[in-house]
């Protein structure tokens, strides 16, 4: 077995939390149950990884199998990477039938025709997600297994989730291969990024709970409001105001859990509006400013601002439009038209 492969497997195993190593190796399926039984998973990780590498040597693992282990690790811990969402456009109107084998073949051939030194691995999951792992090399060097890009694509959707590696120069090539393989004709980056892949999927696939008013009763689990065990001696003075805030909040954010984003960034290119008498920044240039909101869970924290009394309800539409516009990076220019929608540039 190649030394680089051995080292790669060793390092991948070291990344896995000790309690999860056995299950992940079982999922991998490369080592038999009998072999796994011979490993003591209670020793320190260094030793576990050495044992695993020895077993892999017995089975003569090559880079392809090692790559599969890496995909499994990243599928279970996708939040360790930052994912960006890209949207593809189709010129024609026909809905093509998506054939997986066809897709894989086209993707590989397109990528390999431009760059021979790449390792490409595919893995499909039950939710129709296709995971693609690409290790990049150069025309003169072998692929670097530690500089990988990941692509997650759900068939017949225009959205692709890419976690690019440090080598941003390969991104155009990757995008081109995706467009060709999935029968679209161009691709652009949406201004939507996060660590939580599932939340990004929730936003673009509209799986988060939006507040729709319709006659059909919502399913029972959404209406699970706990009955208020009010102590009659306590009187809420601001009850109607609190209810108003709750109502506006529900309209803006819906009832269910919010998708998990870590930032919202607003790049302002607006004119500074001050009292003309104060003579501040008289120049007719836009005032450049960057406002960034960070949070472990941005949308939940925005949702709790008004009920906590820290902001007025309703919140600015610039904040509440994030899931619906599917973006968290905005450029704000001067208002040109009357509608506030034209405020935010696409």
């Amino acid at each position, binding site marked *: 077995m190649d030394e680089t492969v051995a080292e790669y497997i060793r390092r991948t195993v070291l990344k896995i939390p000790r309690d999860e190593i056995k299950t992940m190796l079982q999922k991998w399926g490369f080592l038999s149950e009998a072999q796994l039984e011979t490993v003591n998973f209670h020793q320190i990780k260094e030793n576990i990884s050495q044992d695993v590498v020895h077993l892999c040597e017995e089975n003569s693992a090559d880079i392809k199998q090692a790559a599969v282990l890496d995909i499994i690790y990243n599928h279970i811990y996708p939040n360790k990477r930052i994912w960006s969402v890209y949207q593809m456009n189709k010129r024609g109107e026909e809905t093509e*039938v998506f054939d997986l084998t066809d897709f894989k073949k086209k993707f590989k051939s397109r990528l390999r025709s431009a760059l021979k030194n790449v390792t490409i691995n595919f893995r499909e999951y039950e939710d129709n997600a296709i995971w693609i792992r690409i290790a990049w090399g150069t025309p003169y060097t072998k692929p670097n297994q530690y500089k990988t890009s990941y692509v997650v694509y*759900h068939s017949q*959707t225009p959205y692709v989730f890419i976690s690019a590696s440090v080598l941003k120069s390969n991104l155009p090539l990757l995008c081109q291969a995706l467009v060709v393989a999935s029968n679209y004709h161009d691709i652009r980056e949406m201004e939507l990024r996060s660590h939580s892949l599932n939340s990004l999927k929730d936003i673009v696939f*509209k799986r988060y709970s939006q507040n729709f008013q*319709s*006659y*059909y009763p919502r399913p029972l689990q959404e209406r699970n409001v706990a009955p208020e065990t009010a102590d009659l001696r306590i009187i809420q003075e601001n009850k109607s105001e609190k209810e108003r805030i709750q109502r506006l909040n529900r309209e803006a954010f819906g009832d269910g859990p919010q998708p998990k984003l870590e930032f919202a960034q607003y790049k302002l290119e607006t004119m500074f509006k001050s009292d003309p008498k104060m003579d501040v920044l008289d120049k007719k240039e836009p005032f450049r400013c960057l406002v960034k909101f960070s949070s472990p869970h941005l949308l939940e924290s925005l949702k709790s601002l008004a009920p906590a009394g820290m902001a007025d309800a309703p919140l600015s539409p610039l904040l509440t439009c994030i899931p*619906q516009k599917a973006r968290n990076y905005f450029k704000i220019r001067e208002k040109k038209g009357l509608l506030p929608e034209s405020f935010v540039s696409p």
Partner: protein
Amino acid sequence: IITAWIFERVVLFLAGVFAHLELLEARAYEAAVKQEETEQQEEKLARLRARVQQLRLQRDELRAKLDLQEKGVRKGWLQTSGSELWCAPALRGGKLTKRGVCFCISTAYEGTYLDSYHLDLLTKPEVQIYRHSLPTFIPLQQIAKKYLQTDIRRFLTVLSDHLNAYVGRRYQADQLQVPVAAIEGTLQRNSLCNLLVFNYNVSSKSKAFPFHARLLYGDLCCSLPTEVVVSCTRKRTMWGSVWAEMAAAHTDLFRHVALHKAFSSFSSVGESLAGAL
């Protein structure tokens, strides 16, 4: 002495007779109770049958009414008065909102309610989609481009057909993936569930016939495939003609019957064909 002996015998005889009579009486009683029970059951059954008939009549009446409504000219649906556009909200559960209408499209397959999808439309200045909860692989933009401006009801019908067909196909594909499924290995599918590729075995008389099937659902508004190709995964053996007949029968079956139902009828097809040997 003789008369006493005769008297004793007579008494014993009568006792036996009485016991026997009691037994018969008890039995007769039980039989009568059972008979009454059965009569009651039959009565109940007859009542329920009559009720079913009644409900069926009611359902047919309502269906006829709905048909008439849909066929007849409905002026109240969409009217323009000046620059405004208002909609009668009763159709398809649309609810008027501040700026338009919100619809809920429920889907069902074989009597099971599946997902509901929402569509929020704006009506001013022209009808457009504000937001929705439809899956991204449903060709919403295409359908909207064709019908949204001109015929909203048609737009909703076509969209509803797409959604119902999609959940139907998804339901069938999901049935194939339960642990006790009839397929071998993994099912290759896609988001719209309009291309399914899988391997399966039909075993009869201790022989296993391996097959490979490729189902293409060309019509997105339909939950049955438009093209089916069934082939053999290993080289044909002596059972060549039988195998070909089975493949043809399966192809036909997949074209016309829902997947999970097709699989449950396989054993009978296999048996009858293999029995022809």
